[in-house]
Structures are given as structure tokens and as C-alpha cells.
């Protein structure tokens, strides 16, 4: 590189020339100002993660259904309205299918930590019999209503982080975590852009009514369009997603 005489000459290990000091002080101040302004702007404009949250300890009695994913239809509880469907999960990114299948269709007592996001409720079960055990009570009929076949737009989330285990518990930065939850058999929830029969939340099942397994991992955390039958069980919408109709939307 050419160096003409009038340009300042700087030797790395020596003190900067006096002439340069005000300039360097200005650069340092500018950098510190940049740090503050950049940090403030990025931080203060973070998106709202929603109102989902852990809501403290809760106990509920009701009917348990295991397929496609474990859900408790509340009959009696101090913390939930009767008829509320609860998405069940274990401690951590793990479902409760093993424990639930032993009491499938029975009247049970479930206890743990309440999760709630808008109209959607969940329960993180305590371990062992403390969390889930058979109880005495009359088993009410859970109504099943076929709502027809629909084309829905929305996002596949895991039914634990979404309801409040993490804030935010959806979106691409959270995708790996959502996949881990689904791999752990946490019930997947479809959050649609429009309501069907009063709710935009749908428990997901495959077209055969079975659990998704890991078939939908490529479509989690992004907006997709998909078709399938929608069924109302108790107060819970279930979307029987047809895999070959899934499209990423623009």
C-alpha cells in the first residue's frame, strides 16, 4: 500500500500519536453508544410471547382418553371449568402415554402444574401415582361430533411449550425444541389462523386417528396449509391431518 507523507503513521506497539487521540476517543464513545442503542432497540421491540404460562399446582378429576394423545376431560376441579379438555404432558419434554394407557377411558385423578394459554389448557403431571391414578366417579359420555373436512392454515406446535411451558413456545427459533417435545410424545397442537366451531387450537392426529410420531417434523414451527377431517370430542377440536395435503404457504 502506498503511504504518502501527510498520512498519520501508526506503529502497532507504540502509543498512538497525540493527533489521533481525540479521534480514537470519539470512536470509542461511538462504539459504546452503538452498543447501548442497538441493544435497546433490539430488546424493546421483541415480540409478545403471548399469555401462556405455568399457573401453579392443580388437581383435576375426569375422564382420560389416550388416543391420539393423552387428554383429560375435566369433570370436577377447583382450577378448571368442568368440560375443559387438558393436554397432558410429563416433567420435561416427554409425554405420558405409558401411564395414561393403563387408565384409558377411566375416571382418574390427575395432579401437577397447570398450563394455560387463552382457551387452551394443559396439565404437567406430577410423577407416578401422585400425578395420575384411577379414582371413583361416574364416567360421563364424551360426545364426539364430526365437523366435516376442512382446509386449515396454521402452525404445528408442541402442546406443552405453546401452552406456556416456554415463552415464546413457538416459531422457528424454537423449532428444535418443539421437535424434541414431539419426539418425546408431547401432544402436538395445531394453531390455526381461523376458528372452527369456536376454537383455533386443534389437537393433531394423522388421517387414521393415530399419533403423528415423527412424520411432521419438517413442518413444525412454520405456517402451513393442510386438509383433513375435524372432530369435536367433548370441548376439544381434533384435526386429522392428511400428510399429502400439507403445503408450506407463501
Amino acid at each position, binding site marked *: *500500500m*502506498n503511504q504518502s507523507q501527510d*498520512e*498519520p*503513521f*501508526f506503529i*502497532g*506497539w507504540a*502509543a*498512538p500519536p497525540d493527533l*489521533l487521540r481525540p*479521534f*480514537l476517543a470519539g*470512536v*470509542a464513545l461511538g*462504539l*459504546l453508544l*452503538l*452498543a*447501548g442503542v*442497538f*441493544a*435497546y*432497540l*433490539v*430488546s*424493546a*421491540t*421483541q*415480540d*409478545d*410471547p*403471548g*399469555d*401462556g404460562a405455568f399457573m401453579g399446582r392443580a388437581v383435576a378429576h375426569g375422564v382420560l382418553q389416550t388416543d391420539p394423545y393423552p387428554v383429560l376431560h375435566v369433570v370436577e376441579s377447583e382450577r378448571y371449568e368442568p368440560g375443559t379438555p387438558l393436554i397432558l404432558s410429563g*416433567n*420435561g*419434554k*416427554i409425554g405420558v402415554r405409558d401411564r395414561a394407557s393403563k387408565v384409558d377411558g377411566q375416571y382418574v385423578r390427575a395432579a401437577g402444574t397447570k398450563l394455560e394459554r387463552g382457551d387452551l389448557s394443559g396439565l404437567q403431571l406430577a410423577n407416578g401415582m401422585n400425578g395420575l391414578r384411577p379414582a371413583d366417579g361416574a364416567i360421563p359420555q364424551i360426545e364426539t361430533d364430526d365437523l366435516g373436512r376442512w382446509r386449515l392454515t396454521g402452525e404445528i406446535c408442541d402442546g406443552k411449550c405453546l401452552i406456556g411451558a*416456554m*415463552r*415464546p413456545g413457538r*416459531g*422457528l*427459533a*424454537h*423449532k*428444535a*425444541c418443539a*421437535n*424434541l417435545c414431539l*419426539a*418425546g410424545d408431547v401432544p402436538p397442537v395445531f394453531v390455526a389462523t381461523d376458528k372452527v366451531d369456536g376454537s383455533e387450537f386443534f389437537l393433531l392426529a394423522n388421517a387414521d386417528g393415530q399419533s403423528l410420531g415423527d412424520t411432521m*417434523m*419438517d*413442518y*413444525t*414451527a*412454520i405456517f402451513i396449509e393442510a386438509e383433513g377431517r375435524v372432530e369435536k370430542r367433548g370441548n376439544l377440536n381434533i384435526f386429522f391431518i392428511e400428510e399429502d395435503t400439507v403445503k*408450506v404457504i407463501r
Partner: protein
Amino acid sequence: MSVKYVPVQWNMNKWLYDAVLIAFVVIYIIVFLRLGAPQADFTRPTDGQIVRMRAFGSCAFLMLTVILCIGPLARLDRRFLPLLYNRRHFGVLTTIVAFTHATYVYGWYYNFTPMARYEAMIASNTSFGQILGFPIEPFGIFALFVLAVLAATSHDFWLSFLTAPVWKRLHLLIYPAYIALVLHVALGYLQDTKNPTFAILFASGALLVAILHVAAWRQDRLRSADSEWIDLGPPSEIPENRARIIQLRGNERAAIFRYDGKLSAVSNACAHQNGPLGEGRIIDGCITCPWHGFQYRMADGRSPEPFTETIPTYALRWNGDRVELNRNANLPGTYVDPLRLSEGSQ
């Protein structure tokens, strides 16, 4: 040189430099967590771990962006040179900040799962066949790995041990690492945020890096255009035992001869009557003027004994596989080492 290695050769400038850097990080994190986050429009607060991973992640991006701006800034304006020196401390601190970001991610998104956590990090997202939802973790891991390698090899010992060319090549990995970092953010958080502020800041930072690099490159080109070395292009354009003539300032011209796998440059004007030597050819090992047959040796521009005519010579050098000529003519008869073609294109 026999200066024994020490962990860090501190001096007052480095203390000041590092103090500013640490203040940069402290201000960034405190403003992010204490001033910014409470102002965000949250129904309920975002998870502390997630806010912290955002704080350290965005801080690392900003720091690396600044680091990449220092190089071209110093080339555009030499007053920035003191920032260039000690840039390695900037890099080491950036590595620590990026590592903190990764630690929060690792301890939150990959925690609470029955899988081993590192395994979970690799196995949780395998959507390599698509753009939206493409795993951002490998980009982040690659960038962090490069930062770690660069930080770990920043001591003077490595420069001496690996030799400058190897060390330099290694440290140019910072460019692919920055691309990976941009992809890590562009396919992750950038897709998530609805508020455009982050997108604007992120794009501005990355574009500034791009613009400064183009500007510095342009300036280097302009500088070299009026510098004392003139690009002659690859030597293959000159036929064997013949010359290529180039115009210098005024009426001055130089003739570059190719012979015996060598190149030499002399004035184009014959000492006899200014005949065009470059249109002549090499006969009996001497440049022979097409007008009256005056002869000169290529390397020193002197006529063979017993003649005493001399012409100016020019210095040549390689720039990659291109030849450059120094426009300042040597005194007539000055010996110049011929440029060997075998030494080109390194």
C-alpha cells in the same frame, strides 16, 4: 528476534482498548436486559433464558460486524489503524459472548429431554431439504467453532509456528463464519420477529460490512492505478524473443522483452536515434534496433563491448500470475535481475 513468549504482552494501549471492549459488552447486556426488555410489549415476560440468549446472540453479531468493518475502515482511513491492532482481543471477547449465547440455548432448548443434550442438538432438526425450517444450529455451531479456532490461535506463537501465510489462510475463515452467522440469524430469529426493527438493524449491519469491503476494494484498485507499479497482465501475451511496448507518462515508453524463460524491461527508445527497440527482436542474445541494428543487453541496457551506448532499464515484479512494471526508469545501464517466468503464479 528473541523475545520470550508471555501469555499477553500488555501495555497501556491494550488496557485501554480492552477496557472499551468490556464496557461495550457490559453496556450492551445491561441495556438489553434492564432497560430494553421491560419496555417490550409483553403480555407476560419472555423467559429469562430466552431474553439472555437473545441478548448475547445479538451482541455477538454486532461485535463480529464491527470487527469485520475495522479492516476495510483502516484501509479507507488510516486513522482507524489503531483499532486493527489488538483486533484479536476483540475476537476473543466475541468468542466468549457467542459461547455464552450457545450455553443458554443449550441449557434451555436442549434441556429437559430424555435424549442426551448434545445428541438432541444434532438430531432435533433434520429438515435439510427445505429453506424454511432448515436447521440453523449447524450454522451457529460452525461459526462458533471458527471463532474458537481463531481465538485459540490468536497468540503470536501461532503466527510464528504456522507461518504467516498458513495463519492468514486459517484466519480468513472469519468470512465463511460471518456468512454462517448471517444464515443462522436469517433463517431463525429474523423469520420469527414480527416487529421490523430487528430486521432493519440486522440487515443494516450486514450490508455495512458488504459496502465497506467493496469501498475498500475500489480504493485499493484506484490506488494501485496511480501507483508506481503498472499492471502488464500475464507474461504469455509477449511472444518469445519479442517485446511488448507500453506507454508511460508523457512520451516515455518501455519495452518488455521475453527470452529464455525470462523477462526484462528497457526503454523503448534506442540511444542512437530513438528507434523503436520494442519493434526489434533479440538477435545473438541482444536487443537489436529495427532501424540501424544497434544492440543492447536485456538485463542492463548496455551495448556489448566495445560499444558504450546505454539505455534506461525498468524493474519488474510478480503480482500473482501477473507482471507489474515500475514506472520509474533506472539510470541508463543499471543492471536489473530478469524476472524468471518459472517464479510466477504463486
